[in-house]
Structures are given as C-alpha cells and as structure tokens.
C-alpha cells in the first residue's frame, strides 16, 4: 500500500533569483503568483516518490525580499526543511541565502535544506566559483547548480530533501 505523507517546505531566496520560475514546471499549483505579492506566500505541491512512500512536499514559496527584515518568519513555523535559492550571476544573493539560513536556524533550529545556485545556463556570467561551491559542500551544505530554463538540479533537490526529511 502506498503511504502518502505531507511535509512543509519553505522556498527562500533574494529578490528575483528565480525560485518561483525554477519550480514552476515541476509542481502542482492552483494559486496565482499574485498571492506572492499580496499575502507574501504562494503554496505549491511537489510529490516525490521514495520507494513505497509518496512524500507530498507542500512548498511555501515566500516572496523574495532584498530586505531580510520584512520576511515573515512566522511562515517558516512547522517547516520540515527548506530550499534556498541564489542567483549565480549575483554573489550578493548567495550571501543573502546564507544569511537566511542563519536566521532560520536561529529561530527554528537546524533543518534539512538544499541550496540551489540558479541560472546555470548562464554559467559564463557566473560570479560564484566552483571553489566557493566546494567550500560550501565542505561546510555541510547540500548545494547544486540549477537552471529554470533546463530544469537542471530541481528534481534532485526535492528528492534529496525529501529523503533527508523522512529518514
């Protein structure tokens, strides 16, 4: 018998890093993107099958902010994990992602997360080096380059995150 369980996942990242478009093609969505600007959050669902289990990741796509203080931390309550998204062409967004991670951990303790460095299709314009990514991996980050255009890294991130959450 297939068992379906739900997990709450928050999608976090700076302004216009592309986290909404990154997952757009891979999720079930019933709400319009207008929710992001009005309520500050949009809920999507991503089902991941792990063996005989189906994990429904309920994705809380939080409005991207360049001003961290305006992020509604209350939306993170009860999250089983989170996805951080940064823009490879803008190092500041990686800083932002890491600082979001610190903030989440300060308020909710350590949680499984995946860090996606987006816009891998513009690799030649990247301002983040492979050395930087290696450094992050050494520090225990699950980090992958991703692309909203090709879909690279997205499925991996969700599968891996789901695995770590339900372990």
């Amino acid at each position, binding site marked *: 018998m297939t068992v379906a369980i*739900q997990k709450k996942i928050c999608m976090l990242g700076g302004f216009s890093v592309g986290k909404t478009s990154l997952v757009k093609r891979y999720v079930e969505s019933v709400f319009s993107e207008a929710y992001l600007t009005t*309520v500050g*959050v949009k809920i999507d669902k991503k089902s991941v099958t792990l063996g005989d289990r189906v994990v*429904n990741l309920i994705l809380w796509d939080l409005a991207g902010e360049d001003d961290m203080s305006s992020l509604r931390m209350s939306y993170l309550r*009860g999250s089983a994990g989170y996805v951080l998204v940064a823009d490879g062409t803008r190092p500041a967004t990686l800083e932002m992602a890491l600082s979001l991670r610190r903030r989440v951990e300060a308020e909710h303790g350590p949680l499984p997360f995946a860090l996606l460095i987006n816009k891998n299709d513009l690799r030649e314009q990247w301002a983040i080096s492979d050395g930087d990514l290696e450094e992050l991996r050494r520090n225990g980050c699950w980090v992958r380059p991703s692309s909203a255009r090709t879909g690279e890294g997205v499925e991996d991130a969700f599968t891996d995150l789901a695995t770590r959450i339900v372990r």
Partner: protein
Amino acid sequence: MSTSAAETLEWLFRPAQSDSGIDRKALASLLVELARAVEPKSCAQPAGVSAVDPRLTQLRDLLVGHEIEVLGRLREVIEDPEQLGAAVGRVLPTAVASSDSRLGEVLAPALEKATAASIRNDPRALIDILYPVIVPAIRKSVGDTIDNTFQSLNESLRQSLTWRGLRWRFEAWRTGKAFAEVVLNHTLIYQVEHVFLIHNHTGLLISHVAAEDAASQDPQLVSSMLSAIQDFVRDSFQGAGQQGVDTLRLGDLRLWCEAGPLAMIVAVIRGNPPEELRRTLRDVLSRIHEERRQTLETFDGDSSGLADIEAHLSDCAALKQEGPRARRRGFPWYVFLLAFLLVGIAGGVGLWRWEIAQKMAQEQAQIAMEQARIRAAEAERRAAEQQRWSDYVDQLRAQPGLVVAESGERDGKFVVTGLRDPLAADPAAILRESGVDPARVVSRWQPYQALDAIFVLRRIEASLQPPASVKLSIEGDRIVAVGSATPRWLLRARAAARNLPAGGPALDISQVQNLAEGVVGKLRAQIQARDIRFNTNESLPAPGQDEMLDELAAEINELTALVSNMSMMVRIRVTGHSDDIGPGTYNLSLSLARAGAVVALLKKRGVPADLITIGGAGQLDPLDVRGSDSARTLNRRVSVAVRLEEEQ
C-alpha cells in the same frame, strides 16, 4: 518495592536499635554451630561469651562497616530537613513524570484546597493569570451571542408580518420555543461542503471531508494556504491578538474557522448557516483534541490511521438544512383560491392604479401644456424684448453724434458701448421710449466731438453767440452765416472759422454784412460829421443852425429805421463842448447845457429820447487847438457819435 513513599519514610525514621544492635548470644551460638560443622570435636560453649566482646565489634565492622557508614550518611540527610528537601527536590520531577494517574487523584484535593486558599488570600494574582485567557474568550462569546441575536432579530422582522411568519408564531406558541428559534429553524438553508482539519504548527492538512458533489482544489494546498492567510492576518493586524480569521465570506459561500490549541477546523458552508453550527464545529474540534491529543501534538504530515478523526469531520460535512419541501400533490384548491383572490385583488388594484395613472397622466399632460405655454410666452417675451433691443440699437446707430461700438447680451443684461458727442441725443431718453427695461441695460459712452454739420453748427452757435441779425444754416458740407454784424463779431467769427477742425464742415461768413460799411456806415459817418455851432457863452445853438438840426434829426431817424431791420439798435451820444475862455468848471456845465439843448431840439424833431445819452466835455476836446478866434468858434459846438448795438 511496592510500598508507598510515606511508608518508606516511616521505615527510615524508625528509632534506631541500641548500638550493640545484635543478639550476641544468638550470634555466639551460631558461630559455635558453624565451628562444629567444620570441626565436630569442638565443644566450645556459647555460655562463655561475654556480653562485651571487642572481637565481635571488629567482626561487625569487617562484615557491615561500609553499610553502617552509608546508613549513617543517609540518616544525616534524613534528619536534616534542609538536606532532605534538596534530595527530594532532585528526584520529585522524575517521580511525578513517571507516576500514573493516581498522583493526580492524590494531589487534586490538596491542590484544590491550596488554590481556594490562595484565591481567598489574594484574588488579584489569579485574575492576573487568567486575564489574558478569559477576556478574549468572553469577548468571543459575547460577539457570538450578539451575532446570533442580530441574525434572529433580522429574520424575525423579515418574517413577522408574512403568513408564514404568523404560522411560525403559532408554532412557537404551540411548542413553547422562542420565536427566533423557530424562524431560524425554518429559514436557514445551508450545506457544509467541506471540512478541513488543519495542523496549527505546520499548516498541513490532517484530515479533509467533502460532501458529495462538492468541488474544490487540492485540499492539501488549500489547507496550507488557509493557514498562511491566518498567519498573514495575525501578522498584519496586531490588534487581532492571537485570534485569526474566524469567518471568510464569498457570495453565498462561507468559511468558518474554529481554532483549537493544536489544530484548526475549517468548514466551507454554502448558504446561510445558523450560529448553532459554529457550536457544533467547536464541539467536534474539542472532542478531537480530547481524544487524539497525542496524535495532534506529534503530527508530522502522516495522516494514516486517522479514520476516527475523519468520522468526526464527516458528522459535520453531513450537516445541512434543506429548503422547504414541495407540497404533496393534489388539486391545488388553496393555490386556485389564492390565485383567484390575487387576480381579483390585482385586477381591482390594477383598475384603481390605472385610473390614478390616467388621472396623473392627464394632470401631467396639462402641466406639460401649461409649461409649454409658459415657455412659449417666455420665448415670445424674450423675442419681443430682443426685437425692442435691436430696434433701440438701430435707433442709436442712426443718431448723429452716437457711435455704437459694441452691442449684445451678456449675463442676462443688454450691453451697449460707444462714443457720444455731448450734443447728441441722450441714449437714456431714447431707451425710455424704446420699451426695453432700463434695469437690464448697461451703457457705456465715451465723449467725443462729432464732425456732423449739425453739431459743428451748434458748437459755433454756442461759442460765437451770433446776433439776431445773423442766421446760420447748413448748406451741403458748409455752415453759412447770412445777415449783418458788427466788425467785432465778424472778427470773432473769422477766428472761429479758422479754428474749426480739418475735414469737418467749414464756416462761411462771406454773406454777413459789416455794419461799419455800406449805407449804414455812410449815414453814420454823415451824422457824426455834423457839429452844431454856438456863440460865446450861449447854451442854445447859434442862429441859422435849425436846418442843420433838421437834417441831423432826419438822418438819425433814417439810420434808426434802417438798422431796425437788421435787429440792430442805434445809440446816439450827444456831447457838448466849449472854448477855452473862462473857468473850466463853467465851461463844463456850459457844454452840458449845450448838449441838453440839442437833445431837446432833436426830440422836438422826432428823435426818440431813449436812444440819446448826454455828455459834456467842457474845453477838453477842442477841434482846433490853435487858440485863435476862428478856432474858438469851431470849438463851441455839440458833436454827435453813433453806436450800433444788437437788439436785446
């Protein structure tokens, strides 16, 4: 060990036995028995054991010395209340946590007593503790009650005057229920379409039940979004405290949210649910909390094995109130009767309304006609006024000396502006005759001098004041003066003619005769050439002067007649003179007497006396100054001067 804590303590506090603590005799016998078992020949007697044997003490120390020391320390702890308190404090939480429900039963009476005592001592402390909990609860309860009341009042008002309302009143009276309750029971038509149970902490869906044929989006997504909206409202509106949205309404669809400590129940209701339904939801929620508290606390997204919760929710989802049922079939007598009555009433009312409508239509038509007539009259009046106004303006334009620069209607007033010669006709006077209401007319006239012959003529008349002997008239583009005038007037007239503005009519005075010339001038010269002679010292004319006097009188009369035709008057000055012999004063009076004599003689010859004035020059105005006798003879005379004056 199954003894209770109280027994344990009692055992510990049991008074200690004497130091020896051991039945030495029994011990000695035991040891002898032991020796015999080892060595059967041994026949030592325990009787030889003294009461105090240091070896026994040594043995005891060897055997149980450590335990004695531990017990001593334990005793110290037990006997010192401070140490005992600290020790119990260390283990109490663990003991309470691991105890079963009996601890609650044991403690409950003591806690109740303690709480009661505490409240008696200082109720404020409890109030402070409960305040944040109780006030929102009371507020919510009062709010719900008021909502209920309003709803029932509203319905009551709506229903109380209808047939159905009367029937329900009867039902309320018959069943003893409140009328509002009866009304609500009959009027609220609703159906609970979905019931969600949402985990507060994660926003994840615990369970969802939908009524048959109810459609909705993915309940997992919907429940998370509802949870997000609750958070959003709580964060955005601080005043709401910890309460979130409890009602959302979209058309006839309502979302009722009831929040519990661990989970929130959300019912999607179509129609008009009674407040009672909210109580039902609250009850279900609290029942779920009661029965599955543990599950709710540890919920991590796994909804399997929650069939009982789903059953509870199904109870809610089944709730609905049907609309009034269709009546049983059969001949619809009531409907027929009612329809007949309604048709009758409707017909009557219709006829009545038709008559009223007819009457009103007639009145309206009359009013419309009257209004049209008034409008037509008004239009006519306005047209007439317009006509009068344009006639007036035309009249002004026709007037010499008036130049209309602008005319028209502005802000309900007639306006005319232009130039006006001060000698021109008065526009106000023309306006008075025009029939236009002067109050509606605004006029602005700038003064100017017109060059129309008539105005030039008038200005000349005003400034030159021509004598009656001169007539001024307009001939073509000239002003022509005809008649006769004194040289002095002619001089002024010539100057005035020169000063007339160029381009205007000219003044022609060529036809004015100068009185100093012609017949009059000649006659005047003749009169003035005549002197009446006198002998020395005589005041009467010398003999032989009568002929001269006759001629003089005739000439004066002729001149008078001549100039009277010219509206002129003749003034005669008769002056007497003397020679230079004798005193001056005498000569003066002599000269006056001579003049008087001549005047009298002229009167006698028909010359009107009022034309003549008398003067005496004495010896001061001699004709010949040589001083000879012949010269003196010439100087004894009366001279006559003629002056022509315009008739007054």
